[in-house]
């Protein structure tokens, strides 16, 4: 019966975003505060949280330690072995520039890896039920759209929204479900193993800053190392310098290429996902598809992608779970999102 369904949501679970729900009557205040859990502890996606929810990474951190290690190692070798020689023979600005670039690269990398990329919280039970009902109602009418897709018109372009079976909602445009993180991410670009996180709406600019500054850093180190080897009078080549040369040589081409590719994406307001699938280049067989999100102006696109206001995280990972007073209703699915005050999650 419908009323039973809706009674799962307790009214005190609703309210203003930052208002802390009142503790259960008769409970010890100190106990309640000490044991109240935060939403990140029950987050349904495959993410790991550190510093009490402030930092988040994908469960498979991928090769982030390798990325960090390579950058730090190569830069340290550069500062230790090449800088003294170059300061003497060329200019003393070299360590300063190298240091600034190195700092910028590390900060951008950490910002990309530890930020919420734009994860959409999963639909609440009521919302999922309402959506299902809408799908069933529309399927019973004479025109039958393909199952579990919704067509919307964005800037005179037809866009199909897909239904996400894991998150139980129709994905907003440009949102994609990352199977590695098991989350729907807004403006999903790709899952980058090198940074150990998805790249999406909230961290794309940091990712772009990272790869561009890394290109500059590797090119800079490569240039300096080449200069060092050229200027050195005695024939012995230090092995460290040779190592730096090899690492930088291979990195420069790949990272420069990647930066170039992403500059193209930024200028046309595309994501890697859309580019690979050919969503707007007419590959899907439909004629005259244009990117409905592009402003058709390179400068406007760059500003929109890189300088737009940064939206806040939608998953509120450091918020507290609402406390429950009444006994629980039956909760068959485990993957229901945390905004529902599930009393089996509250600590007593």
């Amino acid at each position: 019966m419908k009323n039973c369904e809706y009674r799962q949501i307790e009214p005190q679970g609703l309210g203003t975003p930052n208002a802390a729900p009142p503790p259960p009557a008769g409970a010890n205040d100190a106990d309640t505060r000490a044991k109240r859990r935060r939403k990140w502890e029950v987050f349904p996606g495959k993410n790991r949280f550190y510093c009490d929810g402030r930092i988040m990474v994908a469960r498979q951190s991928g090769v982030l330690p390798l990325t960090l290690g390579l950058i730090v190692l190569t830069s340290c070798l550069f500062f230790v072995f090449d800088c003294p020689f170059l300061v003497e023979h060329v200019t003393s600005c070299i360590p300063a520039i190298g240091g600034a670039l190195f700092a910028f690269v590390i900060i951008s990398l950490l910002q990309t890896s530890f930020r919420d990329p734009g994860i959409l919280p999963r639909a609440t039970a009521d919302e999922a039920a309402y959506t299902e009902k809408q799908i069933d109602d529309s399927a019973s009418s004479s025109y039958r759209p393909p199952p579990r897709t919704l067509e919307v018109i964005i800037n005179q372009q037809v866009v199909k929204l897909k239904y996400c079976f894991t998150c139980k909602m129709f994905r907003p445009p440009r949102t994609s479900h990352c199977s590695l993180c098991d989350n729907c991410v807004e403006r999903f670009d790709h899952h980058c193993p090198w940074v150990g996180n998805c790249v999406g709406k909230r961290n794309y600019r940091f990712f772009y800053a990272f790869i561009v500054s890394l290109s500059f850093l590797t090119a800079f180190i490569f240039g300096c190392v080449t200069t060092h080897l050229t200027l050195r009078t005695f024939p012995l080549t230090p092995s460290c310098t040779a190592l730096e040369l090899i690492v930088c040589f291979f990195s420069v081409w790949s990272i420069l290429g990647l930066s170039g590719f992403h500059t193209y994406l930024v200028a046309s307001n595309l994501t890697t996902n859309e580019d690979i699938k050919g969503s707007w280049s007419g590959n899907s067989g439909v004629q005259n598809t244009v990117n409905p999100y592009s402003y058709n102006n390179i400068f406007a696109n760059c500003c929109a992608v890189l300088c737009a206001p940064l939206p806040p995280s939608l998953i509120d990972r450091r918020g507290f779970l609402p406390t429950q007073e009444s006994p629980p209703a039956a909760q068959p699915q485990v993957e229901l999102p945390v905004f529902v005050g599930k009393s089996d999650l509250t600590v007593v």
Partner: protein
Amino acid sequence: VRPSLQDLRQQASIAAKVFVQRDYTTGTICQFQTKFPSELETRIDKQQFEETIRTLNNLYAEAEKLGGRSYLEGCLACVTAYTIFLCMETHYEKVLKKIAKYIQEQNDKIYAPRGLLLTDPIERGLRVVEITIFEDQSNGRIEGR
């Protein structure tokens, strides 16, 4: 303390919930559909509802607006490696606070007296405006679906 909202939460039971969906016709910017849900016909004016949604849409547009101010904020953030937001709120967050206040005010003045409750969309991932319809206690019969 808001007596009417407290009453609703503690005493009334939920009859139904309506979800106002996002409107994507202008792109990925956060806007909600102004179409009046049929479940609310017996409870509230169409104009009142549309006015609420339209104000919300304007507020969200203000949050995401690209302009001189947002670029300045972006540049300042870039230069300070985003550490400036440890002491300062982003423009978006400021507008979200405004929205939360507006919704509370609307609930107090207009929706709670009619046995309805608006949920701030930020609690639903900015995907829907959830409107809870409470049972009509005034004449003892259940309304809504």
